[in-house]
């Protein structure tokens, strides 16, 4: 392995090597510590939190009274053949339907299909979105819902009662097809039980739910549930798996008193104890402004109408899924299914439910209920997570949105927005680059004198205070020769967070889901034809070759010229193509700038100096790359 020398390191000289022996052991120790830390997290992932069944006792238990006619046993609008048994006796009148029917409610954005078995939802379709197989997206995941329950079913603290209420045939106020705005009522009564569920629909995504369960006249604590997660859980969809993309599991997110927070189903995070996970079957009587299950792009959020009476139960189940989704026969691993049940402590639940995309425009218009009872509480915008570098990711996303808006409608404009933003950024750096080049040329001419100074101090370690005199001498030299130091850490310090910010935006923001740009079907998925990674490798390699850098050792330069493009290219092979688009644009711009520089007089002189130096270093024989000119 050739001795790799860094021009900045040359100021240390042999002392760097001498001190390096000391450093090397410490470095090895530090590396070992890092390996242990990450290995622990990788191999010993914390087990799933055990489901603690903290069932609460009934809030009220009405005394059994024989003679208590339930006044609401008569159906309000008898439309279907109801098995009403009008009896003058004290027993309650049973209300149920004869057969299972479906009612479909539709508006511009959603189509909801109710079944009167349990008065729950079997399909909740978002008309503007498609799932990965091209069908309109259904928020109800059929397999897990069949096992754990359908949305808008009822949850009570007695499993037998819950099953009865969710299997009974309710009497609907209408069947068939309904256009929103509208309302739909389901009623069921039998043996002292009386359940009334009312749903109100409007022109948006929000559905208003009122539910009341009474047993012999006294209210039973019953909650409106969404037990089985969201249909967009990419874990469930076989076929095109998002290799390389991190699959975020569903989260339980909420807002109390304006403060938002969230939990993942299992304990996670770098500090395990700060994110303990959702145990399931735990009741929380807290004034929730909203409580939601949200996954990457969609969320189902409950907004209670009466915040102070709100109560909530978390539901956590797991389903065994094949670990490789494109191969149904691969070994199965458990996947988390998160659910929520929200209600009111008095037994009369009124809650608004938003089930839809986590789009910033939409969520900004939906307010939770404020203290006065009107919808003026915090918006649902807190549901959108921008990843761990959200501070940089959110402004980047807003900037991209601005550019996207400028270019008018059309889905492929997100790609152009990324390109425009990158180009703008690079152009901003251009004047500084020009000055840096001129100063760098002057310094290259001075290099022999600088080397002489460095040799004088070569036997001192970096941390020796006497070395500061070397810096003073060099500074004096620069001042006499009129060299201004124009460099800055800024481009580097910005490029790295920007890269991460792009990554976060592309993974977390729903507007970029399935956004295409020419051959790229989905900017948040890897490039299917791999054109962009290859372009990046080629452009980086060519840029490296034509850039003059006299300070570098030629073997080191060769290594850099091969390793860096391959490293970046292979990294971007597996990750979002939007990221590759950003990096590729940046590279192409750099390439063009470098070609321009090479044509200018400054560039030509730089190349001369570089070539002369390289020949001197290798003892008269021009090495391959630098000898090109």
């Amino acid at each position: 392995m050739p001795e790799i020398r860094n021009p900045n390191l040359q100021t240390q000289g042999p002392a760097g090597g001498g001190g390096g022996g000391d450093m090397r052991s410490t470095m090895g120790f530090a590396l070992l510590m890092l390996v242990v830390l990450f290995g622990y997290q990788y191999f010993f992932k914390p087990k799933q939190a055990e489901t603690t069944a903290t069932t609460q006792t009934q809030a009220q238990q009405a005394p059994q009274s024989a003679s208590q006619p339930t006044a609401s046993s008569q159906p309000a609008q008898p439309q279907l053949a109801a098995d009403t048994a009008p009896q003058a006796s004290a027993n309650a009148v049973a209300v149920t339907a004869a057969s299972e029917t479906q009612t479909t409610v539709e508006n511009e954005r959603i189509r909801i299909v109710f079944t009167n078995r349990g008065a729950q939802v079997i399909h909740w379709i978002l008309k503007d979105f498609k799932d990965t197989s091209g069908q309109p997206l259904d928020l109800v995941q059929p397999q897990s819902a069949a096992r754990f329950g359908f949305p808008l079913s009822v949850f009570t603290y007695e499993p037998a009662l819950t099953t009865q209420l969710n299997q009974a045939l309710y009497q609907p106020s209408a069947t068939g097809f309904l256009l929103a705005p509208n309302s739909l009522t389901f009623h069921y009564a039998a043996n002292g039980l009386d359940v009334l569920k009312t749903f109100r629909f409007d022109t948006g995504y929000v559905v208003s739910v009122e539910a009341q369960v009474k047993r012999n006249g006294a209210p039973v604590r019953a909650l409106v549930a969404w037990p089985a997660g969201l249909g967009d859980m990419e874990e469930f969809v076989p076929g095109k798996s998002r290799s390389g993309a991190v699959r975020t599991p569903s989260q339980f997110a909420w807002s109390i008193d304006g403060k938002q927070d969230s939990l993942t189903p299992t304990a996670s995070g770098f500090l395990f104890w700060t994110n303990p996970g959702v145990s399931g079957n735990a009741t929380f009587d807290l004034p929730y402004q909203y409580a939601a299950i949200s996954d990457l792009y969609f969320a189902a959020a409950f907004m209670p109408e009466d915040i102070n009476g709100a109560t909530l139960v978390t539901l956590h189940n797991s389903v065994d899924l094949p670990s490789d989704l494109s191969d149904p026969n691969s070994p199965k691993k458990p996947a988390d299914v998160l659910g929520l049940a929200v209600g009111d402590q008095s037994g009369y639940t009124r809650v608004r439910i938003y089930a839809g995309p986590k789009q910033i425009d939409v969520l900004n218009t939906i307010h939770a209920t404020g203290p006065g009872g009107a919808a003026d509480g915090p918006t649902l915008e807190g549901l959108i997570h921008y990843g761990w570098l959200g501070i940089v990711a959110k402004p980047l996303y807003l900037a991209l949105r601005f550019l996207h808006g400028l270019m008018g409608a059309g889905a492929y404009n997100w790609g152009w927005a990324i390109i425009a933003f990158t180009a703008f950024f690079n152009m901003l750096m251009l004047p500084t680059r020009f000055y840096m080049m001129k100063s760098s040329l002057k310094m290259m001419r001075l290099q022999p004198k600088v080397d002489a100074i460095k040799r004088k101090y070569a036997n001192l370690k970096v941390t020796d205070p006497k070395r500061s005199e070397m810096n003073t001498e060099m500074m004096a030299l620069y001042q006499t020769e009129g060299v201004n130091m124009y460099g800055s850490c800024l481009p580097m310090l910005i490029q790295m967070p920007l890269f991460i910010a792009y990554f976060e935006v592309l993974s977390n923001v729903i507007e970029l889901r399935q956004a295409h740009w020419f051959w790229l079907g989905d900017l948040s998925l890897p490039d299917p034809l791999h054109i962009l990674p290859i372009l990046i490798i080629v452009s980086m390699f060519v840029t490296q070759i034509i850039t003059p850098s006299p300070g570098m050792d030629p073997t080191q330069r060769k290594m850099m010229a091969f390793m860096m493009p391959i490293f970046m290219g292979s990294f971007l092979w597996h990750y979002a193509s939007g990221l590759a688009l950003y990096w590729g644009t940046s590279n192409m711009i750099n390439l063009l700038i470098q070609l321009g520089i090479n044509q200018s007089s400054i560039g030509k002189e730089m190349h001369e100096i570089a070539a002369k130096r390289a020949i001197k270093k290798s003892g008269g024989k021009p090495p391959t790359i630098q000898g090109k000119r």
Partner: protein
Amino acid sequence: MTRILLAILDFYRRWLSPALHALNPDNRCRYLPTCSEYASIAIATHGPLHGFFLALWRLLRCNPFARSGLDPVPPAPLPRPFPHKPLP
């Protein structure tokens, strides 16, 4: 702790710095000593915590709007005088 940080900085200077500087080869450090050298010296003379913050402030100052040129690490504080019995 000091040695670990110094080892990390050494690793940066030998391996990461050439890679990062290859992208824009004219981008030298604005100051003398370079930011990574400054960080090493600061941590060595002032201890890990104080040195780390000195280095961080240096990184923030290394932008086109700041003065360039010589920027040595401020000298270490003198040790407090050791109380001793008065000399005869």
